[in-house]
């Protein structure tokens, strides 16, 4: 593992990290918590750039929403008042399900996103929260909606860039509901399926805004766009929820592997989506 790594850098700033990355000729890898990177043991890596001392571990309130530095750990997310208050605390809840206490002490939000696993647990809540990712490279900083970031992650442009922070916009206000649901084989597990949902209803119980995101059932975590659209404007009741839960099954493309079969994953999308929307409804004050 890493036998060919020649240097280990610990830059003190984002600027320095970006410079080192650009100078790495495609053979430099960023390392944060290392909980994915060390397990993968990429044999092509020649330089490691440790960003845990680059000023990227922070959670700030920003314009009513918040900004989370890429090197913020799962443990920090779990306990942060700001994150617990954001979107019903779904991001904190998701962080709390990631691995063991030891893993959560070092695993970072940036690593969870940059690693690009379809099962990464922070991604579905961030999709629901309409998060935006800030990346930096030698040319400067860019903002990308998280879905765009996920789609472009593997491209050459993004592979050479540093994920700086994730921002979540101002929360929606009253009559909202939020949920994060995870299904694993044991308490400590990568998601077999995970679902995050968020919605807001008006005074009459009609859905004004809806987000449903699913993980581990497509090449990246996805938003169930058609289902969200179908929910829009509908009264939040048992029937709407049942239809949405059926609907997501058509929007996912799960695979069979040693963790579960595609058919089971698809079925679980239905179950978890229903449970998620039921929880949302309860929080939004809608009786089912």
């Amino acid at each position, binding site marked *: 593992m890493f036998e060919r790594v020649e240097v280990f850098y610990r830059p003190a700033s984002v600027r320095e990290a970006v410079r080192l990355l650009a100078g790495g000729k495609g053979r430099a890898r960023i390392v944060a918590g290392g909980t994915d990177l060390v*397990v993968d043991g990429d044999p092509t890596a020649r330089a490691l750039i440790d960003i845990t001392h680059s000023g990227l571990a922070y959670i700030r309130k920003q314009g009513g929403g918040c900004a989370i530095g890429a090197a913020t750990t799962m443990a920090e997310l779990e306990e942060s008042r700001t994150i617990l208050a954001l979107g019903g605390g779904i991001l904190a809840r998701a962080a709390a399900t990631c691995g063991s206490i030891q893993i959560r002490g070092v695993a970072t939000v940036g690593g969870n996103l940059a690693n690009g696993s379809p099962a990464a647990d922070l991604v579905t809540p961030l999709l629901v929260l309409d998060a935006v990712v800030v990346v930096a490279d030698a040319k400067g900083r860019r903002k990308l909606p998280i879905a765009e970031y996920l789609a472009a992650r593997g491209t050459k442009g993004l592979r050479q860039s540093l994920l700086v922070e994730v921002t979540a916009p101002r929360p929606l206000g009253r009559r909202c509901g939020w949920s994060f649901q995870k299904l694993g084989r*044991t308490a*400590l597990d990568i998601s077999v399926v995970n679902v995050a949902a968020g919605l807001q209803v008006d005074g009459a119980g009609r859905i004004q805004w809806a987000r449903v995101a699913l993980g581990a059932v497509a090449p990246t975590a996805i938003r169930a766009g058609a289902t969200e659209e179908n929910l829009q404007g509908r009264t939040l009741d048992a029937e709407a929820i049942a239809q949405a839960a059926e609907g997501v099954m058509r929007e996912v493309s799960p695979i069979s592997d*040693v963790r579960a079969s595609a058919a*089971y994953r698809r079925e679980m999308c239905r179950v978890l989506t229903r449970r998620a929307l039921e929880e949302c409804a309860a929080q939004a004050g809608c009786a089912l």
Partner: protein
Amino acid sequence: MTGRKVVGVNVRKVEGHKLVTGAPAFTDDIEMQGMLYGKILPSPHAHARIKRIDTRKAKALAGVHAVLTYKDVPRVPHTTAGQAWPEPSPYDTYLLDSKVRFVGDRVAAVAAESRAIAEKALRLIEVDYEVLPAVIDMELAMAPGAAVIHDEPDSTKIYDRSHNIAGYILREIGSVEQGFRESDFVVEREFRTHRQQHTPLEPHITICWLDPNGRLVIRTSSQVPYHTRRQVGQILQIPVSSIHVIKPRMGGGFGGKQEMLLEDICGALTLASRRPVKMEFTREEEFYMARSRHPQRLRMKMGVKRDGTVLASQLTVLATTGAYGSHSTTVQGNTGSKVLPLYRAPHMRFECHVVYTNAPVAGAFRGYGCPQGFFAQETLVDEIACELGMDPLDFHRMNVIRLGDTDLLSAQLGEGKEGLPRVVRSCGLPQCMESAARAIGWAQKRKKFPSGHSHLRRGVGMACTMQGSGIAGVDWASAFLKMNEDGSFYLQVGASDVGAGADTVLSQIAAETLGVTLDKVIITSGDTDITPFDVGAYASSTTIISGGAVKKAAGKVRAQVLEVASRMLDAPVDQLDCANNEVFTTCACRKAVSMTDLAMQAMYKEKFQIMDGASHFNTDSPPPFCATFAEVEVDTETGQVHVLHLASAVDPGTAINPMQAEGQVEGAVAQGLGYALTEELVLDADGRPLNPNFLDYKMFGFQDMPKLTTILIETDEPLGPYGAKSISEVPINGPAPAIANAIFHAVGIRIRKLPIRPEDVLRALHAERPANLDEEAMFAL
């Protein structure tokens, strides 16, 4: 129980301090000058012949000191199973061979100055394979035209090599045909079990070197140091007298180390390089290059009277041993001999084919064939009881083996040969059942039919199991004791503490017998130069067999002690007793001498060493019993099964150290829960392991553990030291059937395949039919 000072007391583990302070106690905790790293080149193919192998580039690499292929080593057919000579397992394995038989089989081995160089050298070995058709599915192994896995002529003791049959067993007591005829109901079901891996915290590891006399020293994490010494001598063709095996502290074995697995190749590399060599499996290698539990397909048929009396039981098993026949017939023999006799049926029949497949090799694993058999039997029995309208607990009360019964199947099914009849001389099973039932709340919870509204449904289930304590007429052990000037005793035993606490228990037995406190016993175990023979740590034998040897040896030494005391105190031996580090008169005069003064007297005045040794074996294998009760919650939407509470009540005879005994139960339960629900090494169609890592091989962690209730029901076993039998294996058998039965109680589906995966539960729930339909199908005779 009366008046015991050390036995039955929760003393701390004798090696506890050393372990918690991180003292260098384990195999890996030494660093030797010039030590090399040995690595095995694993086969990428499930079945292939090596057409050409060229090691020149690997040998030329700087830092490489030895490269071995089949061309460089003696060809000696043997078994890796660490069993007493002559091993009942087939001699079908070679140090290195020109044929590979599973993904992970040995192709070549190197020793180099660092692990990185060794790995690089492996990549430089050029191999041309002739890939052969592989047999992965055990159901196809005996089919006409199936590839023959052991076509080499020099292997021996294979039952039928042309049909890939490693072993075959058929035994019958009475006549099952008659039994089924006389039965009112006959039920037959098929069950399937899977490949579980031992996952010891410490993987297999061995360090070999040549001592100044040129003898081969093997420092190894092994349950069987003595068998290893004999087998390495046989394989490397060097005399046993030139081998010294040392077993340091171990980080678990669970049967996986009842196997000579790295010692031969590591020794060969040491002989070739004349340097110390360390070999250690990575976790990934441990999963598929070490051993696992035999997968089985079991057909079980039982005949009962209308009132629930069991008349006949028949178990027909197909099992696979993987590419080599290590423990093949003996594990499977247990599936019959330790399982069927739990019920007092006059007619029993057990038939089993153990087949080779091009899959990772199965071997000894805690439970040794019983978890598979009991899963089938206890699930079937639950079904029968429910269909008869009987409480399964009543069914068990009525039918299970009793004190004074003789188990005749064991007489027919010994360790690879005829065995000896098993007489039940101690039996706490009835109390086990009652106390575990009480702990789980059986009476209330069985009555209350689980509520049908929520998607979470609860149920309770039970299972009864037994095991053995040592292999009757085969296992034997010895112990040696000598007295020191300060009144302490040096105890030497060949027994191999795997981490389960044998050193502590054996010290307790010595201390109790000698009338000294535990700190006065200094134990050395598992070293073939220093300690006398012991077959090793397996078959739940250490406490009863090695403990029996210790008690005998201590008894002899005690007699010597009393003789000296008799001279010192001027009292006849029969009026002397010892306790609390002194010998005292039992008469009214109350004279006493301390062990220290006594030792000084013996050594410097009388000029003789108080010392003696003894050997011990049993002609019977007293069964420990266990009742396992589980309460589960089934999520009917996801199929997930949560175990809420697991109660085990075990009869270990006397618990020499109750705290350690409870620890063994809890460890067995954790492993049994994983076996039931989550642990499975999965192979793809080409025999490649899909999940050789802890990411996807799911064991029970702390957060997954249910509430545990552990109850010891102590009995007094006449054949055991201070009444002890055994405990470490039996509690692993119960969780799977108890959980399957609890699932039935909760949601009305019968699980007959392990592990119980959420998907399968869900599928069964969707396919669920009204119970009465099932009933008709079941009693169609």
